[in-house]
């Protein structure tokens, strides 16, 4: 199994713990991830401001993988969604494809057909499969209670993600977490957005959305939150402290990437998985499994 690794902007600069743990887990599972240095922003952050430029950036990145004959594995849900969406549009809109190709000719590229775009977690869920993943586990995580946050662009818009999971009752991440032996925690606002995209516009609104889920997770008694998007992590992990002080409350909820959780089950150490880089301390959590 071989994919072009699409890191996007946030992960290499702000979420090295995610990148590190994803590379470790991929290597263990025999998934070859090819780095393409010339990848740029996926286009998602400028979709609200300039959708034409956003689509052009997505198409540029799709072309780079296509000309190497590789499908794309993205770690960020927004990157996955932006790239998939443009691939979806361009496959059915010849006029748009011609317009895009006129712009891409400036860098000597031509959009012919799209590579498949997949989030890493979807590859694990659909292509690697339970048995293969479990075959690499060394550590039992059954002393942990873990809740999943699917976020929005991992699953939606559902048609560009081929409806691979049910947006109203998703279970792909829970199924992957359950493989580790951890108890999967259900909670009332599981499907809600992290609030992240509103952060540059209205911080209070954004953090209120984030807080609602943190409260629900505390009430449900989760030991940790599992997620698959660096932007969701900015909200739940990076901003958890400011929500605690702003609203005079306490969560102390460790927020881990799925790849860190699977990596723990595979027997990797804390540092190998970048757990020292998580903002909310994870030591008490990993002490429960003897680390």
């Amino acid at each position, binding site marked *: 199994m071989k994919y072009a690794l699409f890191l996007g902007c946030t992960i290499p600069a702000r979420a090295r713990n995610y990148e590190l743990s994803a590379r470790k887990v991929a290597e263990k599972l025999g998934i070859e991830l090819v780095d393409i240095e010339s990848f740029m922003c996926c286009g998602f952050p400028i979709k609200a401001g300039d959708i034409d430029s956003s689509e052009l950036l997505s198409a540029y990145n799709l072309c780079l993988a296509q000309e190497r004959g590789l499908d794309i594995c993205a770690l960020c849900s927004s990157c996955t969604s932006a790239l998939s969406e443009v691939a979806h549009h361009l496959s059915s809109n010849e006029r748009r494809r011609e317009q895009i190709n006129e712009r891409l000719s400036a860098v000597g590229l031509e959009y012919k057909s799209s590579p498949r775009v997949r989030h890493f977690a979807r590859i694990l869920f659909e292509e690697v499969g339970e048995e293969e993943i479990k075959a690499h586990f060394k550590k039992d995580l059954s002393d942990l209670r873990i809740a999943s946050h699917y976020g929005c662009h991992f699953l*939606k818009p559902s048609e560009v993600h081929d409806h691979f999971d049910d947006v109203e009752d998703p279970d792909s991440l829970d199924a992957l977490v359950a493989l580790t032996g951890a108890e999967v925690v259900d909670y009332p606002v599981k499907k809600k957005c992290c609030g992240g995209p509103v952060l540059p516009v209205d911080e209070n609104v954004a953090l209120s959305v984030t807080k609602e889920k943190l409260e629900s997770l505390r009430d449900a008694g989760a030991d940790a939150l599992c997620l698959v998007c660096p932007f969701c992590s900015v909200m739940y992990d990076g901003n958890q402290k400011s929500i605690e002080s702003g609203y005079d409350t306490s969560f102390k909820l460790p927020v881990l990437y799925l790849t860190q959780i699977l990596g723990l089950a595979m027997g990797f150490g804390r540092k190998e998985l970048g757990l020292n880089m998580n903002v909310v301390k994870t030591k008490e959590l990993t002490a429960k499994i003897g680390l």
Partner: protein
Amino acid sequence: MMGTIDLDQCDPDFVKDLAGEPGGGNISACFTCRTCVASCPISAINREFNPARIIRMALYGLKEEILKSDFIWLCSTCYACQERCPQGVSITEFMTLLKNMAIREGHAPAGIRAQLKLVKGEGRIYPIDDFDNKKRNKAGLPPLPTSCEAIKELF
């Protein structure tokens, strides 16, 4: 938000303009069931943001009031409304269209303008510098380019 509609403020061409753009074609199918409002994580916190009302305002042609508003920028693009709309209105795409139109008319929050400038200038929202590469190296991660030539050719 106004209580009554001033017909002098209505632009009868607005719906036609919207219909010609992606996301703006099917808003007239809205039958105001408000499933979008009930699903919206932002409406639950800030009543200023109300997708059903924004669609209704657009259908009335209240172009200026919508495009100059602060509320259109509150959409988090979570797609909860779009996934659930029984009439198949592409509500999230419609909100993105309104934001794009607002920017074309010169109305945009500073944060959004800054993101646009950064990505179109540097090719990344967080440009990589030598210090980032040093940290990447320390973590055992491969280096990334600190500048992007292709972005200058593309824009």
